[in-house]
C-alpha cells in the first residue's frame, strides 16, 4: 500500500488532525490528516482509494480497538475529527460530498425521558461505523418518530429509555410505528430494559451496548 495512505490511516486512527494539533504527544509537529490528504490528492491517488484505504481503515482500526476495550469514546471522537478534516479535501470528488452510508437510523429518547448520554453514545458508534443517524433528541413523542419516518422512508428506528416509568412508552411508539409504516425495524436499548421486555413490546431487537448493536446492524445489511 501507498506509504502516504498508511500514514494517513494512522493519523485518523490516533486523531492527529493537522500539524498544529498537540495530540498525540509522540506525533507533535508532524503532519496530520489534513496535510497528508492534500498530499495524497497531489500525488493523484484516487479519492475513493484515499477514503477506503486510509480514512475508513483508520476509523475501522480505532473502532475495533474500542470494541476490545483498548480505546475510549474520546478516542473515537478525536479520530472522527481527523477524518472530517481529511474529508474536507475529498468532498469535491464525491457527488454528494459524503461517504457512502450503510443506511439511515432514526434515534431518540422516548417521551418523558431526558436521559440522552447513552443514546448519544450509540449515535456516535453507529456514525463511526458508517451509518447515517437522524437524532430526534430527548422526550420524543410517537408522532415525531412518524414524522421523521415520513421524511426518511425506510429508516431503522432506535429507541432509548432510562426510566422504568418511561420504558413503557416504547410500547406505544413501537406500535404506532409498525401500524403506520409496517415492516419498519425498531430497536431498543437503555439501562432498565431486557430482552424479555423487548419481546413483550414487539420490538425487533434489544442491545445492551452500542458495539453489539453496530455489529448486528452490519450483519443485516450485508
Amino acid at each position: 500500500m501507498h506509504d502516504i495512505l498508511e500514514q494517513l490511516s494512522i493519523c485518523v486512527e490516533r486523531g492527529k488532525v493537522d500539524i498544529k494539533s498537540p495530540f498525540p504527544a509522540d506525533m507533535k509537529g508532524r503532519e496530520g490528516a489534513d496535510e497528508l490528504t492534500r498530499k495524497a490528492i497531489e500525488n493523484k491517488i484516487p479519492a475513493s482509494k484515499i477514503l477506503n484505504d486510509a480514512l475508513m481503515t483508520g476509523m475501522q482500526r480505532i473502532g475495533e480497538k474500542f470494541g476490545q476495550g483498548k480505546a475510549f469514546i474520546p478516542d473515537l471522537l478525536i479520530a472522527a475529527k481527523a477524518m472530517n478534516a481529511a474529508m474536507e479535501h475529498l468532498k469535491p470528488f464525491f457527488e454528494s460530498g459524503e461517504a457512502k452510508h450503510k443506511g439511515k437510523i432514526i434515534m431518540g429518547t422516548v417521551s418523558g425521558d431526558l436521559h440522552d448520554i447513552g443514546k448519544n453514545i450509540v449515535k456516535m458508534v453507529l456514525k463511526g461505523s458508517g451509518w447515517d443517524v437522524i437524532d430526534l433528541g430527548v422526550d420524543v413523542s410517537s408522532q415525531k418518530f412518524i414524522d421523521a419516518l415520513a421524511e426518511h422512508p425506510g429508516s431503522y428506528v432506535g429507541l432509548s429509555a432510562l426510566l422504568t416509568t418511561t420504558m413503557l412508552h416504547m410500547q406505544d411508539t413501537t406500535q404506532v410505528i409498525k401500524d403506520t409504516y409496517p415492516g419498519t425495524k425498531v430497536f431498543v436499548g437503555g439501562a432498565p430494559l431486557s430482552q424479555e421486555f423487548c419481546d413483550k413490546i414487539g420490538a425487533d431487537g434489544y442491545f445492551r451496548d452500542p458495539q453489539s448493536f453496530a455489529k448486528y446492524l452490519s450483519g443485516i445489511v450485508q
Partner: protein
Amino acid sequence: MKKFNSLAISNADDLIFGNAQNPVKCGNGMVIGDGVVFPEINFTLPSIKISGETWKEVLQQYREIADNISRRARALKAPGFVVEFEQLPPMTQNPQMGAEITEILKNALNQLYQNDGIKNALRVTVVDLRDADRPPQLRDGNACHQTLSAFELSAQAGADILSIESVGGKEIHDQALMYADLKGIIASLGILAYRDVSWLWQQIKTITNRYNIIAGGDTACGFANTAMQLAGQGMLPDILAALVRAASVPRSLAAYENGAIGPSKDCAYEGPYIKAITGTPISMEGKSSCCAHFSPLGNIAAAAADLWSNESVQNVRLLSGNAPEVFYELLEYDCRLFNTATKHNTQRQLRELFVQSDIRQNIQALMLEPETVLKISRAIVEQTGGYNQTLAAAKTAFHCMQQAADSGLVHLSEIESSWFLKLKQELDEVPVLEDEALNWLYENYGSLFIPESYNLKNLV
C-alpha cells in the same frame, strides 16, 4: 452566604462513618451523624406508566413499599432509618402528585414511630425539570417554576429533608466529557454549575426555613456519576472519571455555602469532601446500591457514611419479598456492622478495611481515601470562588493519582497510562483565570447555554 476557609475535619482519623461535627436533627426523633449510621432506603416504581388511569395503582405501590419496610424494621428491631422518596418526572411536573405520595409515606412513618418507637425521617428529592430544554432556562420559565413549586408542596405534605440532583452546567459538561475536554469540564463545573447551585439553594433554603425543615444537599450525579458509569462501561478512562469526581466538589459545596446542612444526597460521592470541609453528616451508597448501579467503590464508599443507602430499587418481587424491603434488610445489617464497630471502638480498623479493599482495584477509589479527601479538600478551601476551587481540586486530584501510580499503589493499564499523559498536558493548558475560562466557554460552547441562566452577561 457561608464561606468555608478551613476544614471542619483536619485529621483523617476523624473522617469516619457515623460521626459528623454538625449532626442534623429531623423527622421523628432522628439525629444523623451523632455516632450511629442509619439506613437510607430508596425505591422506585416498577415498569408502570404514570397516568390518570394508573394513579391509584401508583399510590398503592408506595403504600405497599412503606408497609413492607415498616414490617422489616420491626422484625429487625431497627433503631431507625431515613426514607428517600425520589420523585419521577410526572410527580414534579404535577407537584400535587408528588405531595400525595409524600403524605402517604409520611403517615406510615409517623405511625411506625408512634407504635414502635422506631425513629425515622423522610427525604423528598424532586426532579430538576429545568434539564428538559436545550439550552436550559434555569432561573425562569415553566420548568423552573414547577421544580420550585414541587419543593414547596413536598414541604407542605410532610417532607423532613429536601434534596435535588441539580443540572446547571450539564448542558456543556455532557459534551465536554465525551471529548475528555478538561477546559470544558472545569469551566462548566466551576463557573456554570457553581453559579446555578448557589442560586438554586438560596431558593430552596427560603422554603425549608418557612416550613422549619431541613435543606439536605445536592449531588453532582449528572456529572461525576455519569463519568463513573461511562468509565465502568469502558467508554471513558477511569482517571478522567476520578478527576471529574474531585472537580465536582466545589459545585456541590455551593449548596452548603447557601444554607444546606445535610444529610448530603446518597449518590453524591463528593460527600466525604463535604463532610471534611463543613462537618455536615453525609449519605453514601456503595456495595448495597448494586441494585441501582455497578460501582468500583463498593466498600470504600462506606468509610465516612452517616447514612447508608441503596440508591434505588424497583418495587419488584424477589424470592424473599419485595426488593425495597429486601434492600432495607441488607442496609440494616451493614449498619449493624458499622455501629457495632463504633460501640467496640474499632471503627477505625473497620474503616481501614473498607478503604484497603478497594484502593488497589481502581483509581476512582483513591478519590474516597481519607488522606486524599483531606488533601484535595484543603486545596479547595485555600481558594476562593468556584472556578479556582474546581481547578485546584482537579490539579490536586491529578497529583494524588500521579503519586499513587508512581508508588505502585495503583496499577494503570496501558491505555489508562497513555490517557494520563494526555490529560496531564491538557490540565496544564486550562486557563488559570476565571474570565479567560469564561471567554473560552463563550467561544467554544457559546451556542449551548444561556448566559442569563447564570446571571452572566451575554458577551456577544
